[in-house]
C-alpha cells in the first residue's frame, strides 16, 4: 500500500479543524446535557403501567412541591422529562432538583395515587446525587486527564523523544473534544460514564499513535537522512495503516454490538466509545504523524 499521508497533510488539518468547528457550533447552540452526576439532582427511570404523554407527566409534576437549592418551595413542573425511545415498555426518565428522602416518598406515593398499577416494580431506577459529589467528579476527571497527560509525556519522552510526546498528545485533545462534541450533538446525558469513556479513548488513541510512532522511530534508524524524512514518515504510516484499520474494525464490531444490541443502559458507554474509536483511528493516522513531520520540517527550515 502506498498512500500519500504526508503530502496531503494540509487537507487532514482542514478536515480536523472542520470537525472541531462543528463541535463548537453544537456546544454553542445546544450546549451539553449535564446529568445529575455533575449537577446534582434526582433522576427516576419509571416503567409506567399504561400509556402516558410527556405533558401529562409535566402537569402531574406541577402539583408536587419540593425545596430547591436556594431554599425556596417550587413545583417540579420544570423538571427534565423524556420518554425512552426504543424501549418496549412505557419508560420515562424524570430529572428534578435534588429531593430529600421525604420528598421522594411523597413523589412516589403521588405516582401510586395517580396511575393505577404503579408500584415498587415500576421504579426501574432511582438516583439521587447531592451537589458535592458532582463537583468532586469533575475535579477528579480534570485531574485524571492532567496527570495522564503528564505521565504520557514523561513516558514517551523517555522511550521516544519530546517531540513525539507532544505530537502524540494533540490527537488525544482532539479525541476528547470530539467526544464532548458528540455528547452535545446527540444530547447524551453527561454522567459518570463520560469520564470513563474519555479516558478509555485517550488510552485507545495513544495506543494507536504509539504503534505508528514506533514505526517512524524504527525506520529513522535505518535511514538517517533528514532529506528523505517525508518519505520515511509516509512509509511508516503506510506500513501500519492496515493494522490501524483492522484493530479499529474488530473493536468497532464489539462496541457496535454493545451499541445496537446492548440496550439503552449501555448506550451512554457504547455510543461515545463507538465515535471515540473512529476519532482515535482518524487522529492517530492523519494528525499525529503529519504533525510531527510539520514540526520537524519547521525545525529544519529554521536551522537552514
Amino acid at each position, binding site marked *: 500500500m502506498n498512500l500519500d499521508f504526508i503530502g496531503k497533510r494540509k487537507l487532514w488539518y482542514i478536515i480536523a479543524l472542520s470537525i472541531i468547528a462543528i463541535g463548537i457550533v453544537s456546544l454553542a447552540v445546544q450546549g451539553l446535557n449535564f446529568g445529575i452526576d455533575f449537577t446534582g439532582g434526582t433522576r427516576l*427511570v419509571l416503567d409506567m403501567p399504561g400509556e402516558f404523554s410527556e405533558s401529562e407527566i409535566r402537569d402531574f409534576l406541577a402539583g408536587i412541591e419540593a*425545596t430547591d437549592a436556594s*431554599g425556596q418551595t417550587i413545583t417540579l413542573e420544570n423538571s427534565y422529562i423524556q420518554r425512552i425511545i426504543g424501549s418496549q415498555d412505557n419508560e420515562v426518565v424524570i430529572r428534578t432538583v*435534588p429531593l*430529600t*428522602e421525604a420528598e*421522594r*416518598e411523597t413523589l412516589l406515593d403521588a405516582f401510586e395515587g395517580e396511575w393505577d398499577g404503579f408500584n*415498587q*416494580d415500576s*421504579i426501574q*431506577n*432511582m*438516583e*439521587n*446525587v*447531592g*451537589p*458535592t459529589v458532582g*463537583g468532586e467528579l*469533575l*475535579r477528579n476527571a480534570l*485531574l*485524571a486527564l492532567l*496527570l*495522564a497527560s503528564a505521565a504520557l509525556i514523561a*513516558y*514517551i519522552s523517555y522511550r521516544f523523544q519530546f517531540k513525539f510526546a507532544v505530537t502524540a498528545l494533540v490527537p488525544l485533545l482532539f479525541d476528547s473534544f470530539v467526544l464532548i462534541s458528540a455528547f452535545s450533538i446527540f444530547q447524551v446525558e453527561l454522567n*459518570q*460514564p463520560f*469520564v*470513563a469513556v474519555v*479516558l*478509555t479513548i*485517550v*488510552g*485507545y488513541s*495513544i*495506543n494507536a499513535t*504509539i*504503534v505508528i510512532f*514506533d514505526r517512524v522511530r524504527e525506520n529513522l534508524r535505518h535511514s538517517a537522512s533528514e532529506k528523505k524524512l517525508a518519505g520515511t514518515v509516509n512509509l511508516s504510516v503506510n506500513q*501500519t495503516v492496515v493494522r490501524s484499520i*483492522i*484493530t479499529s*474494525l*474488530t*473493536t468497532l*464490531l*464489539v*462496541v457496535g*454490538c*454493545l451499541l*445496537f*444490541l446492548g*440496550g439503552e*443502559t*449501555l448506550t451512554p*458507554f457504547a455510543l461515545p*466509545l463507538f465515535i471515540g474509536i473512529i476519532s482515535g483511528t482518524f487522529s492517530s493516522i492523519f494528525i499525529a504523524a503529519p504533525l510531527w513531520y510539520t514540526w520537524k520540517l519547521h525545525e529544519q527550515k529554521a536551522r537552514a
Partner: protein
Amino acid sequence: MIQWTKLLTLVLIMTIIAAAAAVSVPLIIENINLGIDLQGGVYVLLEAQPTDDGGAATEEGEVEQPNLWQRVTGWFDGLFGGGDEGESSSQVSAQDMAATIAVLNNRVDAFGLSEPIIQQEGDRRIRIELATDPSNPEQNQRDILETIGKTALLEFRNADGETVITGANLLNARAAFQTDEFGRDVPVVALEFDSEGAQLFADLTESHIGQQVPIYLDGEVISAPQVQTAITNGEAVITGAGTIDEAAELANLLRSGALPMELVQLEVRSVGPTLGTDSLMLSLWAGLIGLGLVVVFMLIFYRVPGLVASFALLAYVVLVLGAMVGLNAVLTLPGVAGLILTVGMAVDANVIIFERIKEELNNGKSPRASVDSGFRKAFSTILDANLTTLIVAAILFWLGTGGVRGFAVTLAIGIIISMITALLITRIMMNYLVSSNVIRNKWLLGVKK
C-alpha cells in the same frame, strides 16, 4: 516433511483451551461478584456532618449550589493551597463513625440481605451497597432506603414500656474491662449520662431494682440489663457481655443514640432488579455476538493465523474472567463495557504481530523465519503501546471512585492479559504451526499470493 508431533501438539493446545473454556466459563460466571447496577439493589453514600455547636444542623436548603465554573475555580484554589477543606475542619471521630456503621449494620440486618457492604470511605463517608433479591417481598428498595435514612432512636423504657430516657441524654458508651467479685477482668459496657439523663436514670433505676430496663434502638431491643442498685451519679455499667468484641458492639449501638452529627445522603442509587438483570443479559449477549464477529473477521482476513488468534482470544476471555474472580473484583456495567472493549483491543497485539509476519513473508522470508522476526519486531511496539494505555488505567484507578474504579481494574487486567496471551500463547501456537511444516501455501498465512 510434515512434523506430525508438532501438529498434534498444536491441536492439543487448542483442545485444552477449548476444554478449559467450556469447563471454567460457567463456573466463573456463577462466582463473579456483580455490582449493584447489574443485579439490582441499593447504593448509598453518606457523609457525617458534625452538629456540635448547639445542634445548629445545616439544613440542606442552605447549601448554595455552585455553578460549574465556581467548581472548577474552587478546585484550582484548593489545589494551590487554598483551604476548601474548611468544611471538614470540624472533626468527626473515628469512634463516632464506627458507631454509625454499627447502627446501619443493625438496621440493614433486619432485611436479611446477602452480603451487605457498609464501609467507611475517607474520614467521614460511609458507602452502603446492598443487593436486593427481587423474589423476596421483604427486600423492598423503598423501605430499605427509608430505614437507612432514619435518625437513630435510642430509648430506655420502664416496665410499662414507656420511654423514660432517649439517646439525647446519653453522653457516651464504651467497652471496658471491670474486675468482678471473683477478681476476674470481665468485659462491660460503661454508660455516661448528662445531668438531665443522670437524674432520669436515677429515678428509673430506683423504681426498678431487680427488674429489667430494656434499651431499644429504632424500636428493637438491643439490651435488657437488670437493675442491681440505684445509680445516681449518671455512670452505669452493663455486665454480661461474653467477649470484649460483644461489649464493643453494644457500646457502638448505644453510642449511636448520642452521635453529635447528622448523616447527609450525598448519593443514593437504587436499581430495579429487572433493569439490572436485563442489562447483564443484554450486554453478555452483545459481547458474545461481538466476539463471534471478531473471530469470523480474523478467519477471513488472516486465515490460519486467524484461527490461532481466535483460540488465543478464547484463552484471553477465560483468563480475564478468572482474574476478575481471583482478585475478587466487582463487575459493574462500566466494567462490562471495559471488558468488551478490551476484547477488541486484545486482538490488536495479534494484528500487530500478523501484519509484521506478512511483511516478512512478502520480503521473501520462509514462514518460520517470518514468524520469528515478526514476533521479535512486534515486541517493542506492543510493549510501548500497552504500557501507555496501562498508565492511563493506573491513573483512572488512582483518582476514580466506584464505577470508574471498577472500569479501570477491568481495563488494566485486560491490557496485561492481552499482552500475555499474544506474546506467549499466540507465539507458542504459531511456532508449532510453522515448524510442523503443514502450511506450504503462503496464502494460508494471510498473504495475497
